[in-house]
């Protein structure tokens, strides 16, 4: 293994710099930003009112919700891993009709929010959807009393529907690694008579394990966080229980307690991911590896490969987008394009753009500090700063509301005292609060993106540069930056798309008179007329498609 990819233990002693104080501050800032709402959560969970509700939650709510959540995670995780790894292996190792297109088509489902795709599938597979209508037209059946048809509104439906749009997280990260496997090692294996299957199980998959774990963690956290799709599909997940406890019992403390149970689950996931990554890290050798040629498939094998790649694209992108387009056209929604809708598009793009720029800047600083710094707390800070992704958006937004409003009121009171006029709530009123919420929520993606960029650079490069007398700024600016740029770009796009799709924090923290596409879709959906929001839904998807395609391209180039 040391021939192709150098394996390093993470604690390998190497020459390190003391990071500049500014970088260390950035780390602290990131960790503090994320820790604030979590602390607010913990304080709420520990209140006296909470002690009263806990016995009921522990007896009647949590066991069932935990069970459903674990099954959901298992199902979505398993299915996403299967789809993501299989398609990534196919497009990197083989040549078959459509491969070049599939390479980027497979990323597209990323643009579609789970809450939208859930609505679409319930409509599409529903009684009046084209599927059943066609079936009835063919057979002469009239109602569900004449035939049985699977209802997507249950746990298994939720698993399939969510996996259909979440698998690209696995695909993207695993494909990048499969693509990096250098020729020498694969050719050596082939020369030694390894079959394709053996090559996959003994070399491809083990080497991709860290990437699989990283992608899978994103899938699982997204699943855990979801509320729109799970509620609509009737799955009683932990997140949904948090929500109903808060709303129906008026018990924020009770909700906070369930959130803490969930956070424990998340910590377990993150530890498991670290374990899965194991002690291994695969950095690129100092010299660029030669890539293996793809094996050309023919006949039935080629057809199977094409179909295997077409299926997830169809389920996760083509069908939902097609459905939205048909809705928009058939309901003549284009006639309803007004300035309000365009304004909400502009708002969404602006907020997402700002938030991704900030998240990347902060994430990069944290990753640099962790790489160059010697102090263990820097690593800890980077872990803490990653936790925001693990908290459901509603809980995070509620947790952020308290400190942000406190700051706003302090500013307003000070202005009233000194300037004699009330500027109103600055952070919440300007949308800055929302940008902060996005950054807190998605900082994890920026950090892990930066880290994965760095992890491909052998520490030996750092050592060599150090020996040649390079300082930290030179090292990062001239050596690291060009090498990590693709990974950073990918992370930025991912954050951008996630911000576009984000709903709960957007709903709670946006200023007066400001809507985004997601809140418009939600407004229609909460009246039970989702179809009227189809145009806004389509705009979210379209706005996300471009970054998704860029993402696929960025990954492709890295190969």
């Amino acid at each position, binding site marked *: 293994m040391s021939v192709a990819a150098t394996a390093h233990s993470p604690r390998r002693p190497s020459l390190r710099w003391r990071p500049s104080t500014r970088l260390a501050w950035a780390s602290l800032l990131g960790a503090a930003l994320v820790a604030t709402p979590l602390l607010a959560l913990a304080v709420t969970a520990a209140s006296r009112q909470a002690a009263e509700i806990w016995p009921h939650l522990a007896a*009647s*709510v949590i066991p069932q919700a935990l069970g459903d959540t674990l099954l959901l995670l298992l199902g979505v995780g398993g299915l996403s891993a299967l789809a993501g790894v299989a398609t990534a292996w196919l497009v990197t190792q083989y040549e078959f009709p459509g491969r070049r297109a599939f390479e980027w088509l497979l990323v597209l489902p990323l643009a579609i929010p789970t809450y939208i795709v859930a609505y679409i599938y319930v409509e599409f597979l*529903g*009684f*009046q959807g084209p599927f059943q209508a066609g079936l009835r037209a063919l057979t002469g059946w009239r*109602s*569900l009393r004449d035939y049985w048809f699977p209802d997507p*509104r*249950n746990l298994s439906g939720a698993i399939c529907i969510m996996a259909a749009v979440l698998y690209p997280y696995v695909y993207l990260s695993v494909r990048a690694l499969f693509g990096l496997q250098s020729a020498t090692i694969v050719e050596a294996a082939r020369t030694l008579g390894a079959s394709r299957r053996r090559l996959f199980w003994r070399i491809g998959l083990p080497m991709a394990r860290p990437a699989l774990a990283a992608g899978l963690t994103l899938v699982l956290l997204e699943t855990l966080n979801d509320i729109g799709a799970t*509620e*609509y*599909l*009737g799955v*009683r997940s932990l997140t949904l229980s948090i*929500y*109903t406890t*808060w709303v*129906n*019992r*008026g018990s924020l403390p009770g909700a906070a307690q369930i959130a803490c149970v969930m956070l424990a689950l998340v910590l377990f996931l993150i530890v498991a991911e670290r374990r899965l990554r194991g002690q291994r890290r695969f950095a690129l050798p100092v010299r660029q590896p030669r890539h293996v040629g793809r094996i050309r498939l023919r006949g039935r094998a080629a057809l199977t490969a094409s179909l295997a790649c077409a299926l997830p694209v169809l389920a996760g992108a083509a069908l939902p987008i097609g459905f939205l387009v048909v809705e928009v056209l058939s*309901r003549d929604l284009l006639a309803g394009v007004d300035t309000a809708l365009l*304004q909400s598009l502009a*708002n969404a793009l*602006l907020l997402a*753009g*700002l938030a991704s*720029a*900030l998240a*990347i*800047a902060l994430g990069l600083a944290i990753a640099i500090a962790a790489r160059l710094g010697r102090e263990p707390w820097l690593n800890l800070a980077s872990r803490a700063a990653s936790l925001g992704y693990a908290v459901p958006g*509603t809980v995070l937004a*509620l947790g952020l*509301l*308290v400190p942000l*409003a*406190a700051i*706003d*009121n302090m500013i307003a009171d000070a202005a009233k005292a000194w300037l004699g006029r*009330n500027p*109103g*709530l600055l952070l*919440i*009123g*300007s*949308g800055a609060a929302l940008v902060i919420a996005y950054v807190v929520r998605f900082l994890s993606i920026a950090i892990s993106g930066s880290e994965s960029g760095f992890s491909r650079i052998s520490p030996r490069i750092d050592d060599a540069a150090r020996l040649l007398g390079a300082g930290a700024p030179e090292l990062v600016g001239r050596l690291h930056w060009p090498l990590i740029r693709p990974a950073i770009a990918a992370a930025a796009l991912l954050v951008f798309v996630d911000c576009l799709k984000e709903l709960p924090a957007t*709903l*709670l923290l946006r*200023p*007066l*008179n*400001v*809507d985004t596409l997601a*809140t418009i879709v939600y*407004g*229609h959906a*909460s*009246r*039970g*007329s989702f179809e*009227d929001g189809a145009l806004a839904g389509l705009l979210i998807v379209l706005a996300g498609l471009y970054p998704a395609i860029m993402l696929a391209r960025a990954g492709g180039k890295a190969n």
Partner: protein
Amino acid sequence: MIGKIHLHALALSSCLLAAPAMAQSVNLYTTREPNLLNPVLEAFTKDTGIKVNAIFLKDGLQERIRTEGANSPADVMLLVDVGEINAALDAGITQPVKSAAIDKIVPAQLRGPDDNWITLTKRARIVIVSKDRVKQDAITYEDLADPKWKGKFCIRAGQHPYNNAFFAAYLAHHGAEKTEAYLKALKANTARKPGGGDRDVARDILSGQCDIALINTYYIGLMSQAKNEQKSWYDAIKPLKTSFADGGTHVNVSAAAIARNAPNRENAVKLIEYMLTPKAQELYGDGNFEFPVNAEVKDSAAVKLLGNVTPDKTPLSDIARNRKAAADLVDKAGFDN
């Protein structure tokens, strides 16, 4: 480079997102969907010259206003469901409305304590059945538990606020033990897992998945007017005269309240008074097929469609108080599992 983009975007954002400051304005925090409100709000601005700045929030409205505190821009809250209204009251984010004009229109039992909230419209939760397969015109809520509906009953999640308030009313009528038995019997009758929305039950009746379901009245009205497939859902159902065995129909309300630290209190009162005028009641009530609270509006769209509804006598405050207990019972009965 990032820094540069960031600066540009920041400059842009301050233009785009800054809330317009107008001399005459009122700030509205609403859990009612904006599309429902726009006609009334536009009419209000046209008639009074007062601009309405609105934000549609869902469940965090109360937390948001509370944490925004003394400097909150919130003037008026529009809320649905007695639970939500009571939560706002309990959170101490409201203040007495105090308007003689309003007191004349809205009877005391439809106003909160000290006029802390004012009912704007009413909606009932009733039973619908398949027009073809069920031959009866009236039913009691208690009858839904009859085993003859086994495998034929559809309902959205038991923890949804609409059902929560209904079960809380049931609890007020029958006590905890009987309500738990009722929930278990209802659950045993379900044709599918409780979930989806209120309109979905009508669709499921059309598809033959169920014969009988619970729904809020305004959905029936909206479906009757739909220009898409929802019209066929409406055509498949029949609303039944529904009541408690010893009472009337379960009715919930939508209401308005003035925020405790409202910076534009006068305009806030004006807006609420406006929303109670016959003109606004028609715009607002008929737009969503709700029963107007202003008795002057005789033939509202909702009444034309469903006839007059006799509201159950259970006080709204009792329903609000029972909500937690009802939510516990729903969990205990495993209603949503």
